[in-house]
Structure formats: C-alpha cells, structure tokens
C-alpha cells in the first residue's frame, strides 16, 4: 500500500521500510516514524473511539498528551492497552489494534450512545438506575462496565523484565528542547554532574518540529552539534526515551527509561523499562508547552488536530493528514502551520482567525474575524462550516483542520508538591508559581518564555543560577541567534451560539454543554467540575482539556480564570507501566528468602517448607509411604515424646545483651524480674508494650555477670531489637549496655525427648557435665562440642519434654545437625518440623503467635502475677488500668471435645449451652488447635472469659463460617505433663 500522504524530507529514514499492521491491515512506514505518523502517511485518519459516545477519532496531538489515538500494541502476553500511537515508535512487524469498539473501528455498535447523547449528559448516572435496588449490580452496572474501560489486558503474566536503579547528579534537566539543551551545555561545560532526560526518542524537543534556523544553521544541525559535545562530556548523562514522572521530597525524582519499547521484543538480558530514582541537588524543568484546542461544534472529527501537531507531522515526519487542510487559530503561532504546510506543498484552503486584525502570514486565504462553527464527515473530516466576519456562512472542503487556542506552559512537575500555578494574562495561560518543589526551577516555554531565543537564554541562565547555589561557577555559553517572535494572541476558548456539542475533553467526551450543566447544578469549583463531568480525568489528565473547561466555568460564574482556580497536576507526568514500578520484586523475588544453615540438609531429607515471614522453615519431614501430612506430624510428635527429636530453631531472634547494666536493662524491658537471675541460668521473660499488652516472649540466659543472650519469637525479632534500642538510647542513655542482633550468627537446634540428654552427651565434650544434677532445668552454659567447637547449651523446653537448645556458630549448623542425626541413630532420632513443634506446644499449653496477638495481657496469658509491681518495667504502669484487670478477663485455657473424633476449630467462638449463638453471648475463642497423637484427640487452646474459674464446664464451640459446632470441655491448657516432671527428668 502506498504512503499517499507522505511528503518529502523530515527526520525519517526513507531508505528503509518497515512493515506494520493496524487492525489487521498491512502498512509501510520508515525508521523515525511513530505509529501515528506512519498511519497518517498511509492516509489513515481514524485511529480510535471515544470513551463514552464511541465517536470516531484521529490524532489530536503529536506527543504523550494524546487523548484519542490510543491502541492496543503488540499481542499475546505483551499486549499493551491504551498505548498512544503518537509516541509508539514504529518497528518492523509492529502490530496494533484499535480498542473500545465492537465489532470494528469503522462500524462500532456502541456508537449508538452518540445518538442518545442528549440523555447521557454529565452525571446523568447519578440520577437514575436506582430502581429496583438489586438491578444495579445485576443489570445496569454490568452493561456500564462492559461498555466502559478502554483497552484490554491480556491477563497473561507480563513476560518482560524491569529494572530499577539510582542516579545522582548536581543538576537534572527535564526536557531536551532548546532550553534544556542550552542548560545542559552551560552546566556540562562547568563540570557539574548533569543528567539530561527527554521522553522523546529524539533530542531537540520542539526544534524537531519547526523549520527555524539557529544562527547560520538549521536547528537540526545545532541540536546534533550540541548533543555531540554533551555526549563527549564525562559529567553529562543524556537519557533518551526517559520520562521524568515526578518530583518527590528532597530533590528525588522518579524517571522511567523505555529501554526496549521501540523494539519488537527486548534484547536478551535487557529490561523492557528501568525506573530510575534520580537524586538531584537541583532540577531544571525545561518541559516546554502544550498547545490547547478551541471548542466548537463537532471539533472532534478525525483530521481535526492541534495546529502545532499538524506542523510536527509535516516537518518532522513528512506526513500530512490530508492533501487539503485548513487552520483555525486565535494566535500568530497557528499561522506558522499554514506557512510550513504550504512550503511542503500541501494545499491550505484557508486560515480562519477570529481576530479581526489577524496578520497575513501565509500565502493562502486568510479569513480574519471568522470562526469555525461546525464540521462534517463521519469517519474523517470533509467540510468545515465557517462564519465569516460579516456573519455570512461558508463551507470549506478540507480533510484536516489545524486548531490553535494558544499554548499552556507545561507546569506539571511544579505542582507535584501541591504548588499552584499563577495566571499570566500576557499569554493567557498559567505559569509556574514560586511554591514549586524545593530546588526546582523552570526555564523556556515551561516558564512562559515561548520564543526560541527566550528558551535558549533562560535555559542557560537558569542552569547557571542553579549551579551557583551549589557553589559551581558556570560560564556563559555562546548561544546561536534564534527567532524571538512575541506571543500575539487573543483569548478565544469556544465558539458560541451552536446547538450541538463542542468537545473539551475528547477522550472522556466532556463538552461545553456539560460544563454549563455542572454550573447550573452548582458543581462550580474546579474540583466539583472535574469530578462531576470527568473533565481532565482521562489518560491525558486534562493536559489539553482543563484550560477550556476552566475558561468556560469562569465565564459562566462571572469570574476571572485564576479566580476559578486550577486543578493540581499529580505524578506521574505520563502514565507508567506497573511493571516498571514493580521492578524485579515479583514472583519468587517479591521478598528475599531467608534460609537457615541446615536448609540444604532439610531439603535432602525431603522436608516440606513453609514461609514464616521471609524465612523458610521445615514444616514436616515426610517418610516414604506417608501420603498425608498428618501421618508425618503424628510420627514426629510420637518419636519426640517417645525418644528424641531435633528441630531447627535458628529463626528465633537472638539478641546479645552485654554491659555492667545489662541485668538492670533487662529488668526494665521484661515485665518479670531479671536482675537476680543467676549466672548459668535461663529465665522465661514476658515483654510488654508500654500499654501493658504482651509484645513478645522468650527465654533469656545469663552467660556471665554482664552478658545475657535473649531469644525472641521469629516474627518479632526485628521489632524487639528496635524496641530495646529505643529503651536504651531514648530512655536510659547512660546505662552501660550494648545490644547486637545475633540471629544470623548462631545456628540453633532444639533437641527434645526423654533421650535428648543421652544424645547430647555423645557430642558434648566430656569436660562438661550435662547430667540432670550438673545441668539442671533452665541451666545454660558455654561449652564445646565435637572436640572443641564452641557452642551454647540451654536446658529449655518448648515441647514439654526433657529438652535442650544447642547453638553453634552459623557455619557449623549444617555439620551439627548431621552429627546429631548420626549420633542419634541409636535412639531412632527424628527430625521434626514446625507442625510437630506446634502440636507439642499446644499440648503443653505454651502461648505462641496466635495467642500473642497484640491484644492479650499478661493476665489473659495466666501470667498476671509475673508482672512485677516493685520495679519500673515497660508496660507495668498502664497494666494497672481497669480494662486490663476485669474480673471476667479472658484467660488462656484448654479445650477438649467431648466426642474425641470431633475437631476443634481454631478461630471458633465459645458459647454457653442453651444460649443463642450471637456476638452478645460470646464467651471467648479458640486460638490454636491441633490433633494430639498423644491424647488421640483434637485439642485446642484459647481465651475464655474468667476461664481460670471455669474448669470442667462444657461449652459449645461454634464456627458458622466453616459450618461446625462441637461441645468442648474446659480443661487446663497443659494437656501433657501439667506438673512438668518430664522436663525436669
């Protein structure tokens, strides 16, 4: 197919052709094309459908602010909805489809909405669809949801990779048009570290789309020369295809580099995109300006676009939207479009300018004092209706219309920290206020300095000023002479008097009438206007539409535009792929994996692992023939209680506490007394938050007068350490105590069961007496094992059996567990996992995470008397409050089903017999439950009102969620060995 609207010249490489498809049709374009420019060259104007009325649409712009020409790019798992055809770089084999239409772009059944547009005005949905109530979810909403939305996700996992990185610089320059390049040159030559970023795939900004000369040269030559110099400077980093998305606190900017979006697929090992966090001491915004349209009836037809965009397509991409065009402008800049198009051989039918004194610039008909009142052409512009200065009407045939209502400085980033732009009547636009992000200044068109000369000079001077604040001297650079045309514009927002619809927000189908209706219904503030009509809420965030809406509201309210105000731009500047923000933290790499020193060994044993926080812990160790997890767990429990087992408890937090005040410090952080703990002894400690609620528990061993080793639960290791440092540094700064987390320094194993001592005696070096008398319950000692390896031994028990925990330096963990298993063979030692550990602690009535749920007190846990009143411990004072000392306070008790085959459900609630099952009769709840292979029954522990005084009572354990109800007897939580004979054996 021939490129019927391709012109000569432009920044495209016509020596090579690229083949692409749009809605299945094959076309050809060239390197340097965007999808939009290539389609335009091929005579395609219709590229999309609008959101609400499904109106046929073509391109409005030539940049990232495009509201209309949105396509689904690529296919399969790489399908990418809502891609702007105006920024999608053409590559060979590119595939794109139009979206939000059915069955085809040319014939869209949903365009019936357009026929009923009179009923579908702003906010109509708030006024209807209310009866009957149930019909909303069943009928109305599904229809609305199906019709709404734009493109589709493939719902397949994104196959591409994304990276993240950090960059640091003295000066970040956002935008590489004339002001950005002049700034980069100034800063680069000064030796400052400079980053120059531009969202486009070619540096030069607007210079690429204009025919200006700079000095003696064409603009392109100056751009190329400047870039060559910048690229040669080691202190300057030029980042193409890089959009600075937001200005965050303290000079940190986010930027997205589209590394591979211009390629069919990313090169091997390359990411699709990179999210850069740029730490900039100063930022210079050189983001240019965005042209704004004029609203008139049917101003949304394919072929009607911004005048500057039309000029860009012709100059940069050598593509014209039609062979015959017209221009409608209220300012002198719009006339340039006619000049440039005529120079390229395009037939310009007329320039229509509502200003009676419009200048004659182009060599074509000028209709001064005239305005476009209507257009026709269903799938593409055919005619425009013009009202002439004398009031007469004229129809002009044209396939495209360039429209300019003036330019808005691109103030976006200056608002990211809630800065407010200010009105500049000279250019009838908002310019940056002085309350932008700290360290950010603005130059060029973004600051309202519209001429090329002004862009160059302000870019250079602002860069120098920024560097001066950093103590870096920047010499003036020699800038070329450039056009310095003053802005000449008469504000003209919309054509009055028409009966039809004139579009402001083309994507969301917000028209002048909608703004009028919002005003009529008192949605008059900017925020109300935006939210009620959806003006500016589309994918372009109102870059081309907000000003028109504001101007009309101002007129209706009898106020000036700045009195009506402006909505605040928020990051990101342009929408960002979620993948880029997610980076590599997905799938298995979402969080780091922590493995214990014996992880490899456990894997060899066929362990099933479970995530506990970031740790992976062995949950159970299935043996051949065991088909169900319960078989393994029951076997492990029986083996431990019958002989001996080994469990990896490395994940428990370990904190070394040293110093002459260490005992005093522990006395402060534990609710129970620690000051008098003897050397060589271990004690259970309950740690409270300041509000008197249990924070954590564990054992702390005193290895020496001034040396303790604290253990915490796995889950709270980090939080407890932080808390201890708080108590030390903020509350008791003069205590002589040093804290260090040693969780990763020691591998630790529980060795539990009646034969545990015998097993340990085989590896503990003989000079250490670990007999019952020589090393009694709760003893601790630094020892050596296996012939000299230093270790720590604690006689503590979570299982309720005779048990020890033995710790060795991490690098010996793997060796130790292998040695324990070998040495234990004669006792039929088993490895047991967290499930068996959990069963045994429930059988023993030990609280764990399910019980320490952040709302339980020492009293609830049956440890109320442990809270010492004789010392100043964290949490002791507020423990005295009434609500924490109720007579019917919840107490930890055990539950056993009357029918031993019935199951106790964790999370079930307790009711008295014969009372209604509802919240007001709730007596408590079960926190943990398991099957006890020792008791041959399901058992549970949990909290019961006044539980300590209700032993023997029968209750109903109800779980309506899981549909179960069983009768349980209240028993002691210590199901196994309540007197503790075993652990002292």
């Amino acid at each position, binding site marked *: 197919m021939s490129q019927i609207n391709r012109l000569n010249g432009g920044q495209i490489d016509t020596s090579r052709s690229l083949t692409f498809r749009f809605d299945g049709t094959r076309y050809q374009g060239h390197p340097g094309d965007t999808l939009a420019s290539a389609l335009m060259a091929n005579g395609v104007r219709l590229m999309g459908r609008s959101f609400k009325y499904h109106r046929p649409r073509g391109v409005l712009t030539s940049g990232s602010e495009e509201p209309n020409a949105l396509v689904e790019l690529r296919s399969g798992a790489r399908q990418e*909805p809502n891609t702007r055809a105006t920024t999608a770089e053409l590559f060979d084999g590119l595939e794109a489809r139009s979206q*939000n239409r059915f069955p085809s772009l040319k014939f869209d059944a949903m365009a019936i909405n357009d026929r009923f547009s009179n009923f579908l*005005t702003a906010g109509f*949905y*708030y*006024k*209807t669809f*209310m009866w009957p*109530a149930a019909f*909303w*979810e069943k009928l109305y909403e599904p229809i609305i*949801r199906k019709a709404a*939305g*734009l*493109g*589709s*996700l*493939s*719902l*397949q*996992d*994104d196959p591409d990779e994304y990276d993240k990185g950090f960059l640091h610089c003295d000066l970040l320059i956002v935008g590489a048009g004339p002001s950005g390049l002049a700034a980069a040159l100034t800063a680069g030559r000064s030796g400052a570290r400079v980053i120059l970023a531009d969202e486009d795939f070619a540096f030069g900004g607007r210079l690429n789309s204009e025919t200006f000369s700079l000095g003696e040269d064409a603009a392109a030559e100056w751009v190329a020369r400047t870039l060559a110099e910048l690229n040669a400077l080691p202190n300057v980093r030029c980042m193409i295809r890089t959009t600075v998305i937001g200005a*965050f606190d303290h000079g940190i900017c*986010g930027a997205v580099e589209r590394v591979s979006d211009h390629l069919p697929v990313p090169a091997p090992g390359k990411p699709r995109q990179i999210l850069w966090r740029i730490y900039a001491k100063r930022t210079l915004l050189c983001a240019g300006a965005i042209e704004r349209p004029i609203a008139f009836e049917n101003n949304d037809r394919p072929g009607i676009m911004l005048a500057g965009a039309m000029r860009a397509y012709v100059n940069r991409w050598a593509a014209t939207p039609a062979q015959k065009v017209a221009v409608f402008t209220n300012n002198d800049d719009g006339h340039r479009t006619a000049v440039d198009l005529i120079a390229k051989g395009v037939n310009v039918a007329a320039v229509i300018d509502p200003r009676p004194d419009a200048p004659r610039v182009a060599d074509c008909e000028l209709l001064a004092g005239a305005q476009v009142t209507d257009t026709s052409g269903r799938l593409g512009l055919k005619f425009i209706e013009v009202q002439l200065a004398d009031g007469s009407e004229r129809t002009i045939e044209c396939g495209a219309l360039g429209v300019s209502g003036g330019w808005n400085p691109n103030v976006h980033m200056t608002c990211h920290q*809630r800065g407010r732009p200010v009105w500049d009547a000279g250019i009838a636009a908002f310019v940056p206020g002085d309350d932008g992000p700290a360290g950010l200044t603005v130059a060029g068109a973004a600051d309202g300095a519209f001429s090329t000369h002004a862009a160059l000079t302000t870019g250079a001077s602002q860069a120098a000023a920024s560097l001066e604040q950093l103590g870096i001297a920047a010499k003036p650079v020699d800038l070329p002479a450039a056009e310095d045309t003053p802005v000449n514009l008469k504000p003209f927002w919309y054509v009055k008097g028409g009966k039809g619809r004139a579009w402001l927000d083309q994507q969301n189908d917000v028209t002048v009438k909608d703004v009028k209706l919002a005003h009529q219904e*008192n*949605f008059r*503030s900017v*925020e109300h206007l935006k*939210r*009620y009509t959806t003006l500016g809420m589309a994918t372009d965030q109102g870059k081309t539409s907000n000003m028109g809406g504001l101007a009309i509201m101002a007129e209706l309210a009898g106020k000036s535009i700045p009195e009506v105000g402006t909505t605040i731009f*928020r990051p*990101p500047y342009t*929408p960002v*792929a*979620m*993948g880029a*923000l*997610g*980076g590599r933290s997905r*799938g298995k790499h*979402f*969080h780091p994996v922590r493995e214990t020193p014996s992880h490899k060994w456990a894997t060899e044993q066929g362990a099933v692992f479970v*995530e506990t926080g970031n740790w992976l812990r062995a949950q159970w160790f299935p043996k051949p023939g065991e088909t169900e997890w319960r078989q393994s767990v029951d076997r492990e429990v029986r083996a431990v209680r019958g002989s001996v087992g080994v469990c990896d408890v490395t994940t428990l937090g370990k904190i070394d506490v040293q110093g002459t005040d260490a005992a005093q410090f522990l006395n402060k952080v534990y609710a129970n007394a620690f000051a008098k703990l003897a050397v060589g002894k271990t004690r259970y400690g309950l740690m409270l938050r*300041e*509000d008197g609620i249990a*924070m954590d528990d564990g054992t702390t061993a005193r290895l020496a007068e001034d040396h303790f080793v604290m253990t915490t639960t796995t889950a709270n290791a980090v939080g407890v350490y932080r808390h201890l440092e708080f108590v030390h540094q903020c509350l008791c700064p003069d205590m002589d105590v040093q804290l260090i987390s040693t969780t990763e320094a020691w591998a630790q194993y529980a060795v539990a069961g009646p034969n545990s001592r015998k097993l340990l005696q085989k590896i503990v070096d003989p000079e250490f007496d670990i007999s019952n008398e020589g090393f009694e319950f709760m003893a601790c000692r630094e020892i050596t094992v296996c012939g000299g390896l230093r270790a720590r031994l604690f006689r503590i028990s979570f299982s309720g059996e005779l048990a020890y925990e033995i710790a060795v330096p991490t690098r010996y963990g793997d060796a130790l567990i292998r040695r324990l298993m070998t040495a234990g063979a004669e006792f039929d030692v088993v490895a047991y996992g967290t499930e068996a550990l959990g069963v045994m602690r429930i059988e023993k009535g030990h609280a764990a995470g*399910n019980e320490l749920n*952040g709302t339980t007190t020492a009293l609830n846990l049956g440890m109320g008397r442990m809270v010492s009143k004789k010392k100043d411990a964290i949490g002791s004072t507020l423990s005295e409050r*009434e*609500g924490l000392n109720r007579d019917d306070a919840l107490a930890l008790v055990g539950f056993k089903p009357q029918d031993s085959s019935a199951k106790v*459900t964790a*999370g079930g*609630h307790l009711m008295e017999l014969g009372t209604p099952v*509802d*919240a007001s009769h*709730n007596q408590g709840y079960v*926190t943990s439950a398991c099957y006890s292979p020792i008791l041959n029954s399901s058992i549970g522990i949990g909290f019961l009102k006044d539980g300590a005084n209700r032993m023997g009572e029968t209750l109903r354990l109800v779980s309506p*969620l*899981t549909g179960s109800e069983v009768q349980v007897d209240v028993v002691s939580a210590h199901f196994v060995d309540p007197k503790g004979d075993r652990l002292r054996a």
Partner: protein
Amino acid sequence: MRYSGLRVIKEALTGHKGWKAAWRDPEPQPSYDYVIIGGGGHGLATAYYLAKQFGKKRIAVIEKGWIGGGNVGRNTTIIRSNYLLDGNEPFYEFSLKLWEGLEQDLNYNAMVSQRGILNLIHSDPQRDAFVRRGNAMILNGADAELLSADQIRAEYPFLNFNDARFPIKGGLAQRRGGTVRHDAVAWGYARGADSHGVDIIQNCEVTGFRIEDGVCKGVETSRGFIGAGKVAACVAGSSGRLMAKAGMRLPIESHVLQAFVSEGLKPVLPGVITYGAGHFYCSQSDKGGLVFGGDLDGYNSYAQRGNLPVVEDVCESGMSLIPAMGRARLLRMWGGIMDMSMDGSPIIDRTHIEGLYFNGGWCYGGFKATPASGFVYAHLLATDTPHDTATAYRFDRFRRGYMIDEKGMGAQPNLH
C-alpha cells in the same frame, strides 16, 4: 426535585433547562442549633440524618473549602464490614446496611456496588485469624465466606498461582462488600441535607471556638462568628489542627496514605481483592480504572502527597499478586491525610467542653463508615447518648484500658 430515569428523559427532551442546583449556597445565619464543622462525607451525613432522622432544624455544615474535597474524594471507595472486634463489627455492619438502602433513601445513585471483597490467606496462622474474624462477622449478623485456593483460582485465574513467593492458600470473602462512587456520596448527602433545610456553607474556615465557662457557644470563622447550641467537629485528617483551637490534644496522629488508579481497562477485577502477604488492595471502577492502594507512608504528614518508596512497595506487591498488571499503566497517584488513632479505631464522643462534640480518628476506615458515622453522630448530637453500635468509641477508653485494637499494634498509629 426528584431524580429518576423519567426525569432524565424529560430533561433531555427539553434541553436540560430544569435541573436545579444540587444544593444551595446560602449566607451563614448568625446562629444555628447545630453547627457541624466539616463538609466531608461524615459531616454531610451527620447533617442529613440529624435533619431527616432526628427531625432537628437550624443546622449548618461549614466547610473551609469545597464540600467533598477531603478524604471522601480521595479514598479507594471500598465498603465492607469484615471487622473482628465487638467494639467495631456491629457499627460497620450497621454502616453496610445503611449503604444497602442509601440510594433509595437519598434518591441519588452513588453506585453502591456489592461485588464482594476478598481477603487472601497465605499462612495457617492467618487462616486461624481469618476464621475467627469470619465467625465474629457472622455472629454479628454480617456475611462471611471462607474460600479455598481452588475456589479463588476459579474466580481469579490471573492471580499468581504459579511462582508466588507467598502462595495463596485461601481467602475470606464478604460478598456484600464492594465499592461506592465516592464523590457521589458527598453530593448525595449534601443534596439530601439541603433538601431538609440544612445550610451548607462552603469556603468558611473555622478559626477558633468561642468557649465561655467551659461551654462552647459557637465558632469563629473566616466569615464571622457563628453561634451554635452544639458544635460538632467532623474533620478527620485535620482533627488535630482543629481541636488544638479548643485547647485539646488528641490520641491521633495525621499520616499520609497514597492511593492510585490505572488507565481505564476493560473489566478485569469483579470485586475487591486484598493481598495478605504484601501491602496491596485493588478493585476496578465502573470507568475501568484499577483503583489500588497499600500502606501509609509512615511519617506524620499534612502534605496530601507521598513519596516513591511506598509507590514502589505497593506496585511490587501488585505485580507479585497480579503479574498481568505489568502492562497496565499507573495513571494518577494522590495522598489523603488520615486521622490515625492510637488503637486504629475512631472516636465519636462528647468532649470535656460542654456543647462541643468530636468525630474523628477514622484511620483509613472512614469512607466505609460514612453512613453509620453520620447516623450515630447525629444520634449523639440529638440525644446526648451514644447509639447502640458506637458505645465503645469513647475518648476515655485509653485512660480506662478499653482499646479497640483490630490489628493488635498498640499505641503506634502508623502501624494500624
């Protein structure tokens, strides 16, 4: 004027000339019986129920900016009553029931959409906790459903079931949960209140309280003194700033919570999904945008904007749960200021100053509470007794030791 499909058709045929202002813009009167400070969802709902349900007259809502400009317009629109504790669950269930009849009551379509909310489970302890919660919900008259991983996979096949770091092991669903068009809630209540004679006074900032002998007589405002029989503060997000003018320190910190929306997409997510292994929850609006959020930024802030680390954290969680999201684009991010209370639960109570009442501390549960908050606050204002579902929301619960701590995080607001 009454809204209906017929009215829409009639107006369409007659040029939409007949639509009236949704609410008036009256000049403030010298005094009212009730002055409600704060024209957000809660304040407007309070005024509406005070007038309609409790038959009170001479009511004003004063708002420093435009109504609905605070958190009611910057949340993620979720409604649910999946709370655990007795102090909370009856209140939120009452709220959900009010949502269910809201549109007919207000004659305003706020698009209450009960497409369900699903909290994912990734570990056994989490399942135990969710079973307890689901049971508590049912015992309080709400609905709850425990789903297996297979059931979830059938409904949401595109969640990460292949290589998840924290595999999905089940979920707790509340089918009656869902979303509501947030702005419409403010507008619907405003219109309803206005039609019952409430004066809604925009651009009227409270600059001080007139307190004489321990009695609040009214408020000083940017538009002059307004006398009041009772003054009702209702400015969650700015509670600390406002109540400082009455000399009060609160058990509240102000924190920023960011929220996000993607570009419009054809329907993907039917209901609300909450990730149980990362900071991420997501729904899809009727317009097609994926609306999502995560954790607080974590530091005290009144700036209504956040920073990149949390943006990344939320998106990392999102990508790990829904790997197909990678090619959707985040369109807009914004921040709201949360009244983070010391136990994560709100306060609706009298203050120690006679005639001055307080409603705040909503953390990020405020939106779903809007109808009930308005109703029970109106009840308190009208009767001087707390509504049955809100008896626990007292100031003195901290002093007396009756915290309502759903998350069990204690007196650290940024963890709730």
